[in-house]
């Protein structure tokens, strides 16, 4: 069994960051490695060329990773005629009307709001229910504890698509199909396995003595959890919260299958995929790229601001 150790993670990334921070002294001009980089020992004449080559690959991949995104942002400022004329010419002016057209006429604003409502509910619910279950499973002995834990954790290794057909009919029978609160519940349920797995191992690392002290002072179990243990678990909650936020915000299969009735109740990912089809028919390429950029930018901005936490949060499950 792999146990995630959240505490170890930020430290590791920080270590890496510190090393980078120390780099400026030895990092030569950004253009490429200086010729005198051969080491004191071992590096033959091939080493310099190899350095250049491998640094070249790093630059190339940076261009590949960011290029399409920059291209989409740039294209969103062009008119459809300009886009057809040449895909990579610069826009003649900043055609912001594309953005307002995408936001209003193409309903991207509505989709954005729908996504925000669903994810706000499901994220709060996931964190609350997930950490409640994890806390009990981590720190209390009772018959069936192990069984429940493995039932939750086992959910991580099943492909969601496998359950989609029966899930559709379960939702239908409960009158939860095509509703926002139905999606919230489904998002919570399918986020529980990782949340429980991660938070269980986190609660186990917290010292026992603080909870004991709270109990001796007469606090109930519930109060101990909410006022003592939950605040102590904040670093873990942040990591798993980022993980769940991105996973739920980016979810496509579940809304596609379970939220199909009303077009104006679609979520952002659904709306964008539908937009790609409809704007293709209308020939409104500029509107499409504006919609794409609108969907893309908020997440990227949040990521750039909180890059270290996001990187740590997303890789948390795989690191030990």
């Amino acid at each position: 069994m792999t146990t995630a150790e959240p505490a170890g993670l930020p430290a590791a990334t920080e270590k890496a960051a510190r090393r980078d921070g120390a780099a400026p002294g030895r990092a030569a001009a950004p253009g490429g490695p200086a010729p005198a980089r051969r080491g004191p020992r071992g590096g033959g004449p091939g080493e310099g060329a190899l350095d250049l080559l491998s640094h070249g690959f790093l630059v190339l991949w940076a261009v590949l990773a960011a290029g399409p995104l920059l291209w989409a942002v740039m294209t969103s400022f062009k008119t459809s005629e300009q886009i057809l004329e040449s895909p990579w010419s610069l826009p003649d002016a900043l055609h912001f009307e594309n953005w307002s057209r995408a936001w209003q006429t193409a309903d991207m604003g509505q989709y954005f709001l729908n996504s925000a409502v669903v994810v706000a509910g499901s994220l709060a619910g996931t964190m609350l229910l997930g950490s409640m279950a994890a806390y009990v499973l981590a720190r209390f002995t009772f018959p069936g504890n192990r069984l429940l834990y493995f039932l939750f954790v086992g959910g991580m290794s099943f492909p969601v698509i496998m359950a989609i057909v029966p899930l559709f009919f379960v939702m239908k029978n409960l009158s939860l199909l095509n509703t926002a609160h139905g999606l919230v519940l489904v998002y919570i349920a399918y986020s529980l396995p990782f949340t429980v797995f991660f938070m269980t191992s986190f609660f186990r690392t917290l010292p026992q003595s603080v909870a004991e002290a709270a109990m001796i002072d007469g606090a109930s179990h519930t109060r101990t959890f909410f006022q003592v243990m939950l605040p102590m678990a904040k670093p873990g909650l942040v990591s798993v919260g980022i993980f769940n936020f991105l996973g739920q915000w980016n979810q496509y299969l579940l809304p596609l299958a379970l939220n199909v009735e009303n077009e104006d109740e679609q979520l952002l990912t659904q709306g964008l995929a539908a937009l790609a089809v409809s704007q293709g028919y209308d020939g409104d390429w500029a509107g499409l790229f504006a919609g794409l950029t609108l969907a893309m930018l908020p997440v990227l901005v949040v990521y750039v601001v909180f890059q270290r936490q996001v990187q740590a949060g997303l890789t948390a499950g795989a690191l030990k």
Partner: protein
Amino acid sequence: MAGESATAGSPAATAKGPVPVAGAVGKGGGGRRAGNPARRRRLAEYRFVAGFLAAPVALYAVLVVSPFLQTFYYSLTDWTGYTADFSMVGLANYARLLEDELFLTALWHNVVLLLVLPLVTLGLGLFFSFMLNVGGRRRGGAVVGGVGGSRFYKVVYFFPQVLSVAIVAVLWQYVYSPTDGLLNGVLSGVGLESLEQNWLGDPDLAMACVMAVMVWANVGFYVVLFSAAMASVPREIYEAALLDGAGRATTFFRVTLPLIRDTVQTGWVYMGIMALDAFAYVYIMTTNQGGPDNSTLVLPVYLYKRAFRDGQAGYATAVGVALLAVTMVFAVAAMALGRRRDRIEF
């Protein structure tokens, strides 16, 4: 890694139940008179446990566990999904799978993805993270270090990872667009018109195009993951290798790779599971959701179309069970192949 303190702490915490329990067990057996307060405490504790578990367990049972179990049941029926009535057909759906050419095509595509994607993605991820963390060594005073600007590279490489697969798929649909796409635009811009293609429209190319997007979207994750793992390798080990005259390739294969082996293995399983999915990429990006000419059809897309387009819910669940079987075989194989006894502690 800073995990040592945590590892040291956790066994103790696991072994110990809450202290009141330990006391209660002894006294509770002793008799009613003496055990009363302890027993009351224990009851309160059970009530608390039940209260905290009720909502998450109920939700999970209804929306996750029960649909998974129902999948097995429905796979034995001829249910259309349109009406409530159906009859048991035994293993007929599974027999049909074996003769269904579309299913076999989709299965083959998933197997190709399973073999190619982890290899390429993890290979690139290892290469880049090694360059960023260790490869730029032997410069100035630092013995071991990454190339300059490695923080910047990591941030940029990770961009595609935070975007929704839906966004990535729509974006690449237009990068690949034959008339006004970026790819053909760049090719003609540098005078390589002869290489221009109808990327996603050509049955021979479409699958490779989908794979390229999946690699593009996931490399950043593994660069960050492996970087964190490499950063936890003690520097002295590299210094020792350096003193022994190890070159870069030797350092990578004899020092770095063995030391981060567990992380690579976990990454392999992750990427394999992703390769068995590929739903949103194929569903959004390709023509006719799996075309042209079924050249990009994968199992999840086939399942989805059978269930929600063709009204063959029973048969679709059989596809789901087959998908689960493939996933399990892969996971077990990956774990078994990666097992080693001489675990290295550092």
